[in-house]
């Protein structure tokens, strides 16, 4: 499911509204922390519980803590938010990572405990208390809708957008302001907002929208995007509403080319585009133009996706989480680290879905920079120096990063062409076949029928393996089934018995 998060800034709320917002954040944060501490103190072994068991801890009695802080409107959000935090915490503990029970906010009482503690207090503990002193936790608004946690409105005949946020319980509902007579419509169904003469439990807040925000708000109006949850966040003196949008997946086009992207030597990334039969079309360097941090990764990802869209390409990347591409040398390191490349891969994957591009395929990085595209010889000795490839088997040469990108682009073509090795030997009138990839052995009487008999056996074996849901065998089955003649995909290798 393709999601995108957009950040909408609240337009200069008045002093009164700022107080209301701060108050809501305060109530939410206090409730959150107190509920968390309560269940933490009641269940020392909380990390070991399953998700369902943890959710059961948030029963009516525990959630009634929120009543003490007039946080009734946020109870559902608190439940969801606390569950997610506990799930993350227990995930880290079960993975063997060192993780203390989460604290999201501290107060003066926590400072006093530190000061009055008989035990030795570490600098880390002191910092933990002060870093989170009076901390506001982002306020989760879990449902979008007309009378739900939040909704978005638009002023008639203008480009002005507003957000309606439920922040108050009945006791603290605020009176309707006589000046609030701007005609506003809900952007999802065009229904007009009607003010009652009673008190209201919500705030209407104008949004500061630039072109980028308007683009996405229009997509909501047109039904192309659907708002899901949102969080209200305070940064400095400004308030933001970060809205999570869901987009209907666009059907991906049928790729006409392959685009391989590898870590570069002379630049950050190097790419190669080839046709479906492996003919090279274009090679180049992708640069982030001196962007840094997250912006750098976004910039690189967007550049890759533009290339893929312009060339109708199936994107091929490599997986660096379990294996290295052996690009770094003892005296030199590529400018894009393996973790950055992995982050880039994840970003490209979700962005490609949003843009209607085929999902990228991730392959093994083994030999990408060391396999000769001419004779397929794979040797580390093929790397002559940092960026020169010189095959020690056939003499083919080129720039290492371009060859790597080319090998990656053609990886899927090579996979389809690779044959299944079947070893055989003949002895005493019998012939014995063995295929390591399939893990099968077969013997029969030697003769002209032997091969056909073996091929039939392979088919039966693979069909039966579909029931066992073995990915590798399924993949081999698909490959063998792709043509009428199974022998096209099989390489017979005689061995001495």
């Amino acid at each position, binding site marked *: 499911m393709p999601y995108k998060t957009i950040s909408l800034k609240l337009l200069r709320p008045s002093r009164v509204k700022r107080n209301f917002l701060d108050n809501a954040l305060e109530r939410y944060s206090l409730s959150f922390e107190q509920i968390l501490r309560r269940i933490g103190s009641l269940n020392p072994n909380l990390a070991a519980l399953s998700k369902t068991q943890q959710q059961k801890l948030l029963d009516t009695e525990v959630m009634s803590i929120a009543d003490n802080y007039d946080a009734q409107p946020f109870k559902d959000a608190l439940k969801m938010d606390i569950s997610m935090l506990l799930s993350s915490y227990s995930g880290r503990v079960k993975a063997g990572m060192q993780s203390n029970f989460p604290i999201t906010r501290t107060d003066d009482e926590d400072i006093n405990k530190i000061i009055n503690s008989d035990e030795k207090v570490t600098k880390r503990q002191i910092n933990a208390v002060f870093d989170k002193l009076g901390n506001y936790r982002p306020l989760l608004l879990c449902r979008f809708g007309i009378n739900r946690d939040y909704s978005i409105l638009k002023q008639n005949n203008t480009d002005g957008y507003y957000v309606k946020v439920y922040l108050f319980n009945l006791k603290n509902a605020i009176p309707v302001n006589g000046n609030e007579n701007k005609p506003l419509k809900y952007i999802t169904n065009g229904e007009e907002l009607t003010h009652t003469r009673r008190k209201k439990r919500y705030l209407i807040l104008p949004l500061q929208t630039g072109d980028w925000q308007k683009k996405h708000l229009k997509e909501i109006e047109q039904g192309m995007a659907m708002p899901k949850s949102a969080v209200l966040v305070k940064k400095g003196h400004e308030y933001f509403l970060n809205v999570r949008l869901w987009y209907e997946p666009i059907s991906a086009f049928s790729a006409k080319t392959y685009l391989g992207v590898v870590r570069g030597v002379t630049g950050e990334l190097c790419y190669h585009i080839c046709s479906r039969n492996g003919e090279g079309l274009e090679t180049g360097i992708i640069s982030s133009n001196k962007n840094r941090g997250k912006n750098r990764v976004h910039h690189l990802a967007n550049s890759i996706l533009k290339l893929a869209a312009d060339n109708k390409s199936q994107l091929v990347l490599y997986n660096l989480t379990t294996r290295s591409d052996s690009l770094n040398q003892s005296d030199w390191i590529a400018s894009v680290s393996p973790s950055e490349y992995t982050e880039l891969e994840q970003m490209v994957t979700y962005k490609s879905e949003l843009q209607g591009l085929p999902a990228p395929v991730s392959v093994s990085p083994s030999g990408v920079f060391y396999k000769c595209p001419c004779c397929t010889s794979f040797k580390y000795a093929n790397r002559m120096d940092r960026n020169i490839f010189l095959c020690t088997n*056939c003499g083919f040469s080129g720039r290492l990063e371009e060859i790597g990108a080319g090998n990656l682009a053609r990886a899927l073509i090579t996979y389809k062409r690779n044959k299944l090795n079947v070893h*055989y030997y003949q002895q005493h009138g019998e012939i014995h076949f063995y295929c390591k990839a399939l893990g099968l052995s077969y013997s029969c009487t030697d003769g002209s029928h032997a091969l056909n008999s073996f091929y039939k056996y392979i088919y039966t074996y693979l069909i039966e393996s579909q029931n066992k849901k073995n990915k590798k065998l399924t993949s081999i089955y698909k490959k063998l089934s792709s043509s009428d003649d199974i022998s096209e995909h099989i390489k017979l290798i005689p061995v001495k018995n």
Partner: protein
Amino acid sequence: MNSLYYETSYGSLIKNGEELCGDKVEVVKVANDTIIVLADGLGSGVKANILASLTSKIVATMLSAGADIPDVVETIASTLPVCSERQVAYSTFSFIRIDPEGWAHLIEFDNPEAVFLRGGKRLLANREQIVIGGKTLKEARLKLEPGDMCIMFSDGVVHAGVGKLLNLGWQHDNVVDYIEKAYKKDSTAHSLQNLLLSACDNLYMQAPGDDTTVVVCRVIPPNTAYVMVGPPVDKSDDEKLVNRLLSFNGTKIVCGGTTSQIVSRISGRELITKLDYIRPDVPPVGTIEGIDLVTEGVITLGRTLDIIKKYETGTVGRENSLNYKNDGASLLAQTLINKCTGVKFVVGRALNPAHQNPDMPIDLSIKLRLVEDIAESLKRLDKKVEIEYH
């Protein structure tokens, strides 16, 4: 001790835009010694070709006649035409003379240093400087052993890639490093020479900036192939010939279905025919324990002759026509060319009953003719060839 055999292969890339190569190689055999000369004429094109040709011919001829090195150098200096533009008559040269026991004498004048390999690693050859007629030459003497290789190359190799993939060119140390990495135990002189030239061509991006020549000499102990083709006329000779085959000290090859069956019957070893048709026009090979290669007869010999002729008449650079496939004809050609220094054909003249069919165009004379043609080609490839008829 049996004389060592020196398998030599050389090839060149012509400078982009020129029609003639300015490098020249001469290989001569004189009184069991092997002399290899590599000359590089100044400049490129016709002038350089003339300079290099003159130089290599003078060196080879004079050494063959027993001349001393100072005489050779003085003759070259006085013979070479002077360039009207540069007012210089100049050609670099290197030559190596190796006797049948492996003693090698190397002389180099302004050519990149030759590289010697032993076990795939560089063998250092101490060079001494000698001055003749104002020219400084380098001289080295060393004893070569079976398996050693000597690689000589012109400066086009050292400068490969300059201005293209490599700013400073390939450079001598990198060339040596590459040779060591590329070396394989079964590397032949031709395969290594071809590989180096291919690397140069690729580094120059198929537009050589200079004439580029590589000469490789591989030292191998002599190895003769015993090739049994066709059954003997007299059946009583079957056992004798088969036993000679089995006891022969060298590579053993059997060509022909009937012949294979005879060998199998008399030796008591199973004849197994392989399943895979590597080439549709060449029958599959078989195996008999103790025999290095078992092929079909006439059709395979015909294809083998095609391959050997293509190899023999290859263009400058000795284009690899062996292809290193595994069909019977390719295997037979590879074995005779790469693994053997001599071949003994033992040809049976018995008529194949199948060939009596008037619908079959093949007859005995074709088989004999094929064997003779293969033998002639192999002789031109410097193999010692014998044919025995039964």
